[in-house]
């Protein structure tokens, strides 16, 4: 009897570290999922959609996702806290919604870097277009370019982060100054659309989803696709920059991802990456999220996401001279 017990004890000792190996990680407690923007916003909807999908498909061992919105310091405090999570159970049960619009201000204004996180996946991509309003002075982007060249001042309204980076890429390609083709940063795309509906600016930059209803209602018309391929549906008429003149297409990848803290164990990272992949491949995700928000379904797995985000960070740091 004693022998059996001893063997059992030894066996359990050996198997304990084994069972924690490879894909054998399972959530043992509730998962804290940090979102660094306010409830009701795009990132919040994205996070709650994924966590709901995971709960429904029982991908988290019956544990609950606690989505917490940490908005202190423009989100930097939340990101910093996640990056500093000490290794252990807590690190394995902490996720962070991480988008291109989060990475840019983070590396620009703080010393926090992607290296302090474990990239898990990129779930979707988005691109922008330029639109004109109903009573627009310039009807095509070609007219805009000609007007700017003849000394007129043209103003684009857009949102923060991604839109600013796209705009900077655009004027660089067009060889215009910020004074010739100006850009007004709004808190949100809807604020930017407000200003073009009132006729206060010439162009508005928006992603397809935010502009969709206005295009359907005839209030906005797409005039330039900031992409290397044309859009589909009611946006298909918008030409790319290379179709407007002898320019290169301008495209700035806007992406939505998920990361964990740097200290997350490889087993936990593999587990979450796999769960995220399952969500991304589900029909509900394709239809109710990607389809509804008119995103590009470009899922990148753990390795690819890491490579992509790293490259993105390097390029961005270079572009701002850091």
């Amino acid at each position: 009897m004693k022998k059996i017990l001893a063997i059992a004890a030894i066996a359990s000792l050996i198997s304990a570290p084994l069972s924690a190996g490879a894909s054998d990680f399972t959530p043992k407690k509730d998962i804290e999922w940090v979102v660094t923007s306010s409830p009701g916003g795009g990132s919040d909807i994205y996070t709650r959609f994924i966590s709901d999908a995971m709960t429904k498909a029982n991908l988290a061992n019956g544990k609950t996702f606690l989505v917490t919105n940490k908005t202190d310091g423009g989100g930097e405090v939340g990101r910093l806290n996640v990056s500093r999570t000490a290794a252990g159970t807590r690190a394995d049960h902490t996720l962070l919604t991480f988008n291109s619009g989060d990475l840019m201000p983070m590396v620009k204004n703080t010393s926090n870097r992607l290296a302090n996180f474990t990239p898990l996946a990129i779930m979707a991509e988005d691109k922008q277009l330029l639109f004109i309003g109903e009573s627009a002075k310039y009807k095509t982007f070609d007219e805009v370019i000609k007007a700017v060249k003849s000394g007129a001042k043209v103003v684009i309204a857009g949102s923060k982060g991604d839109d600013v980076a796209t705009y900077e890429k655009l004027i660089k390609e067009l060889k215009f100054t910020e004074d010739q083709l100006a850009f007004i940063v709004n808190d949100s795309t809807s604020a930017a659309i407000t200003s073009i509906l009132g006729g206060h600016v010439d162009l508005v930059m928006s992603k397809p989803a935010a502009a969709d209803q206005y295009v359907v209602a005839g209030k906005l018309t797409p005039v330039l696709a900031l992409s290397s391929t044309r859009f589909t549906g009611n946006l298909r008429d918008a030409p790319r920059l290379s179709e407007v003149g002898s320019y290169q297409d301008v495209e700035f990848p806007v992406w939505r991802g998920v990361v964990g803290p740097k200290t997350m164990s490889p087993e936990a990272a593999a587990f979450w990456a796999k769960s995220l992949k399952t969500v991304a491949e589900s029909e509900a995700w394709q239809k109710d999220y990607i389809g509804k928000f008119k995103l590009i379904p470009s899922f990148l797995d753990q390795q690819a996401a890491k490579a992509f985000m790293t490259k993105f960070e390097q390029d961005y740091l270079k572009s701002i001279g850091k």
Partner: protein
Amino acid sequence: MENINMLLQGFSVLLTWQNVFVTFLGAILGLIVGAMPGIGSLAGVALLLPLTYSFNPTTAVIMLGSLYYANMFGGAFSAILLNIPGDSPAVMTALDGYPMATVKKRPGQALLVSNFSSFIGGFIGMIILTFTGPALANIGLKFGPSEMTALLLVAMTSIGWLVGENPSKGLLLTLFGILLACMGMDTLTGSPRYDFGNEYLLGGIPFTPFVIGMVGFSQVMILMDERLVKAKEVTEKLTIRGSLLTKHDLKRLLPPALRSGVLGTFMGVLPGAGATAASFMGYAVQKSFKSEEPLGSGAVEGIASCEAANNGAAAGSFAPLLALGIPGSGTGAVLLGGLMLWGLNPGPLLFTNEPDFAWGLIASLFLANVVALMCAWGVIPLLIKILSVPTRLIIPCITVICIVGSYSTSNSMYGVLVMLISGVLGYVMHKFRYPAAPVLLAFVLAPMLESNMRKSFIISRGSLDIFFDSPLSLAFMTIFIVILLFPAARAVFGSFTRTKMETAK
């Protein structure tokens, strides 16, 4: 006529047992959330939003809509009884509400005045919304950066002259509020300002904990102070009958409430202005009309003008939201996120594509208005008893609410820290007789003024002409210049008449 039919159809959507139930639930929650210092409509709607993800969209928005709406009623309660505005639009209510409740010993009437004015203001807003919804939204669109700049200049310059008896203190505090509001990320370039290398300060000073500290926690310290000096006198018994409004009160209440209801509705439609700016403007306008008692001393007109305005604004802000898919306030933005989540496409086609939803929501506002009035009325007898609760019990209660409220804004102790520091600041200011309202108003308005002014200059390439081009901004700029020149003109003219009189002698 068509709109009335649509509204009636909206009522038929609304009058199912579950929608009526959630209207009541929303209204009651809204009153509670509104009355709690710091937890305003934004936090209330944001906290409840995740709960509604699985509701059907009409039911969900009816609940959140009535919560948002009833919140405007509740905010006045603690402002009047404790001098602690439950949410930021109630900052102005406290100016007259608290003196009326304490100095004039008419707490019941003060609460009733605020209730009735809220009801009237909201009702006016809803009528305007029903008949002119999309047209109203289009008026809002006319306010571009230059028009908003001109309007905000008028508002900012009138703060000092409006609040408190000493204009130079008012000016100083306005500038202090502007300075504080400058901290954090520059909205136009995304570069940090006055962050002192601290990542928390990158996001600036969070508004809610700041307000809770300035007006709530500082009041706790003031109460403790008073308690040391003298024991609280037992106030005479407050009965329901004793707190009913007199005919005379109603007569004083009506004109400002009607005016502010209309004004507030328009303020609510303007992009990003919101209920706080509306109640402020309502009060400012009242200052130029005749009041029986001076504003700030517990005048019925003062309470009525700001309460009607903020409820009008709450109703008005639904116009751009429903007609164009544009949020008129922070709370509107959260509701907009909700619409998307519930599977609707907010935008210019919402009225056409989802009439049941849009009109059901408008109908629910009418119901919420009545429900909130009834509920608020029902709790007044209980509420005025708060005044007779001993200070030693009130102090810990308010302190707990202050801490919870400031913690919940960003789920961190940073909010609590901000609340404590601004509480001490508010206390010191009170001791030296500096009013807190100018700081708070400047803090709310300054970021709006800054971003609109800089946007105008981007559009005009730095030329000032833009502020005089459109008739709207020209009109506001004229008012602004008149306000600026008025004291100077009065000084010159005043001394002129004096000398004339002296020579006549």
